[in-house]
């Protein structure tokens, strides 16, 4: 008996597979995840119904999900835009911190009246953009790998935040590592329940990024450069300028993700205010790599997984780490879905005598 595994690239991706693959893989992830739930004595079916169906149908769950999605959309776009130029912005997390630092500082120290919020948004975008500009410049001019530099810049940003909230920006009552609270004028107003106007910012920027990529000359250049930088250069596109631009814009989007989280929900800068939004943004951008609207959908799904996850922690007393395991499985399986879409994998078991021919591709 011999077992053969044949992996070959698909020539055409059938439509049912293109759209169905994420659904099947999420279900597969949930099936595997149910093992952990059974292990702690929880009925997985009931838990999953609560996690997804109940969360996504009840007003409170929906509002929670939308609110949670705001930083994820912005951070997702921050990874998505450079990805179109085939650059990996692994450091959205650091750009989020910079946006939060600058935004918080503006909110506390600048009294712009009605313009306080726009000022703080612009400040955050500039802060995040500068944080993206350093790797962008290094990549454009010296060809330094942006995966490494963006990640390194993240360490600098998080440690810098730790320093600020214990030093120059430390504020509020007591000696906690946090900034002073934002004044009322610097807090994002609510629309309904917990949902703040950050959602408007996120939606507007999704549309803006869509227009940039799909309708503008710069977008055409970004996509072309991302697809084949040598041909792009031959055609007269300025590769360095494009690399710099996408990382600056990506940084600015991430900076906004940081400030809406502070000015919309937390009102203070704390060292751990972003629970890995910048890193969750990477699978979001991978799933939504075909367009800004897909990034939006992927962000909503991830927000649902986070909110639904907290629901079952509360309802069933499931340890938070098990919810993390399920979330991680979903991300892992979704990434495999990309592979399954691109390649057909077939397992063959042959019970044949020696000498049987096995087709081989060279």
């Amino acid at each position, binding site marked *: 008996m011999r077992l053969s595994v044949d992996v*070959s690239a698909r*020539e055409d991706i059938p439509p049912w597979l293109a759209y169905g693959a994420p659904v099947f893989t999420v279900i597969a992830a949930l099936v595997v995840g149910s093992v952990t739930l059974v292990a702690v004595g929880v009925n997985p079916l009931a838990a999953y119904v609560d996690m997804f169906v109940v969360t996504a149908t009840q007003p409170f769950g929906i509002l929670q999900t939308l609110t949670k999605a705001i930083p994820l959309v912005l951070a997702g776009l921050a990874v998505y835009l450079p990805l179109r130029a085939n650059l990996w912005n692994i450091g959205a997390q650091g750009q989020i911190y910079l946006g939060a630092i600058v935004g918080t500082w503006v909110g506390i120290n600048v009294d712009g009246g009605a313009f306080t919020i726009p000022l703080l948004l612009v400040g955050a975008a500039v802060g995040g953009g500068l944080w993206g500009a350093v790797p962008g410049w290094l990549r454009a001019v010296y060809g330094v790998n942006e995966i490494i530099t963006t990640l390194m810049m993240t360490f600098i940003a998080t440690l810098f935040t730790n320093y600020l909230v214990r030093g120059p920006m430390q504020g509020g009552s007591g000696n906690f590592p946090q900034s002073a609270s934002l004044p009322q004028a610097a807090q994002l107003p609510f629309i309904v329940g917990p949902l703040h106007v950050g959602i408007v910012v996120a939606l507007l920027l999704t549309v803006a990024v869509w227009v940039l990529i799909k*309708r*503008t*000359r*710069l*977008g*055409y250049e970004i*996509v*072309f450069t991302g*697809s*084949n930088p*040598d*041909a*792009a*250069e*031959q*055609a*007269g*596109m*300025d590769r360095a300028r494009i690399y710099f631009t996408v990382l600056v814009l990506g940084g600015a989007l991430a900076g906004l993700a940081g400030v809406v989280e502070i000015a919309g929900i937390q009102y203070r800068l704390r060292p751990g205010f972003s629970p890995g939004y910048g890193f969750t943004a990477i699978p979001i951008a991978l799933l939504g790599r075909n367009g800004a609207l897909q990034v939006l959908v992927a962000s909503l799904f991830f927000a649902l997984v986070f909110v639904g996850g907290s629901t079952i922690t509360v309802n069933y007393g499931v340890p938070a780490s098990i919810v993390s395991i399920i979330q991680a499985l979903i991300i892992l399986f979704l990434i495999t879905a990309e592979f399954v879409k691109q390649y057909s994998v077939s397992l063959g078991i042959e019970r044949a005598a020696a*000498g049987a*021919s*096995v*087709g*081989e591709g*060279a």
Partner: protein
Amino acid sequence: MSPTIIWPRLTGSVVSSVAADPDAFLELRGITKRFPGVVANDGVDLTLRRGEIHGLLGENGAGKSTLMKVLYGLYTADEGEVVLRGEFLRLHSPQDAIEHGIGMVHQHFKLIPRLSVVENVALGEREPAAQFRGRGGLVGRLGRAFSLGLAGPRQRIRDLSAEYGLDVDPDATVLELDVGQQQRVEILKALYRDVDLLILDEPTAVLTPQEAERLFETLEQLTDQGLTVIFISHKLNEVTAITDRVTVLRDGRKIATVETADVTRAELAEMMVGREVLFSLEREPVPVGDEVLAVRGLHADNDRGVEALAGVDLTVHAGEIVGVAGVSGNGQKELAECLVGLRRSTAGSIRVLGDDVTGRPPRHFVDVGISYVPDDRYRFGCAPALSVRDNAAMKDYRQPRFGEHGLIDYGAMVAYAESLVEDFDIRGVTDVEAVHAGDLSGGNLQKLILARELDREPKVLVANKPTRGVDIGAIEYIRERLLEKRTDGTGTVLISEELDEIFELSDRILVLYEGEFVLETTPDATNQDEVGLAMTGVRPEDAADAVEPAAGGGSA
């Protein structure tokens, strides 16, 4: 066209040899090989006689390589049989093929550059060193297991070289050898394994005309000794020059096997393409216009920082095609890249229509009206993963007709791409937005690139090997279009290794050797031999009095 013979399918128990051709020693019967979406070989029969040179002719994608890979054990056929002297063969690997006396020289040599000739030839056929032979005990066993005896193989290589006139030093390191010599090492590798049949896959693709001539002599010596040679090619002049019989494949099917002496090149071309092919293009005299490109004293380095262009002067006028002949690696790539702004020159100047463009970015070269057909079309010519639409507008997307105020009017771009597909007869494009450039066949992709570059009404066209690796039908088309642009007043720099192409299209010929032009002439004032020699560094004045050219012209 001869009728295709359908062989009776032999079933398991009946094992008899049915030989229609009394001289046949190897037969392929009804070979069918399918790949997802394509039938690469569709019931192909091929009969080989002992001692013949058998040409296998067909366009790219006709199924030549697939058929030979089946014969060499690299692919297993879905249907059909290989019969050698009445024996049915099961070939699962090249090892099986070699054991049955079938050898192959691949287009890209499979040699280890750092090893010597004898080490390369003996690779996989190790003999223990002589001093351990017959020695007992642990030392003897270890010695036999791990030592390498090269004395025997060395002598065998000397004998074979002498017998077949191959002339290779067994102790030379492969990386010191020129391409022609490396090819002879590949042939030696096969002979060393006692093959009766030698398959050569496009053997002349990498050779200069002189080296090719040398190869043909070797092949004749091989067949005189009783070997059979399969010569794969899409070059008609070579096939008609050296083969005894030719089998033509088209779209995976065998069209015919003919005696070479009985057919003309035109007939072979028609069998290959399926329609009549024009051989000599009409090249009307075009009045030479103003100077469009002036290059003076150009120096440039290659990617490794070594000087590749050592002071090149080049002038091109409107309505003129200047052919740059040379063997790859003598500075052609660097010259082309300098002329389109992709490579910075280290000295010298480039002027287009009198404007100094030296050192400007590629975009400036595009804007002043230089078009470029790169030799590596997948790397520099297109973005294979993007649509035909995006690739069609790659050079002109900044023009107002494709949108103003920084926006792009994709509707206009689609219409433009469709017009190019229509005008240049680019096949395989059902939808310019859905079909990717990389999905097109080599010839059609080259047509798309050419369409884009020519439609811009360029002042100067730099075409580096524009017909490399494309089908004969597309070659004809591309050459016609280049001549058409010449009539329109474009000044063209045509870089090519194909002397036929250079002679057919050029008004003037320059030969590039080691970064310098060693010969400037016109097609009427010279011949292919003189240009071919100049490509190996022999200047006409040297050739006249030197019988043995000093520079490596293929002889060792």
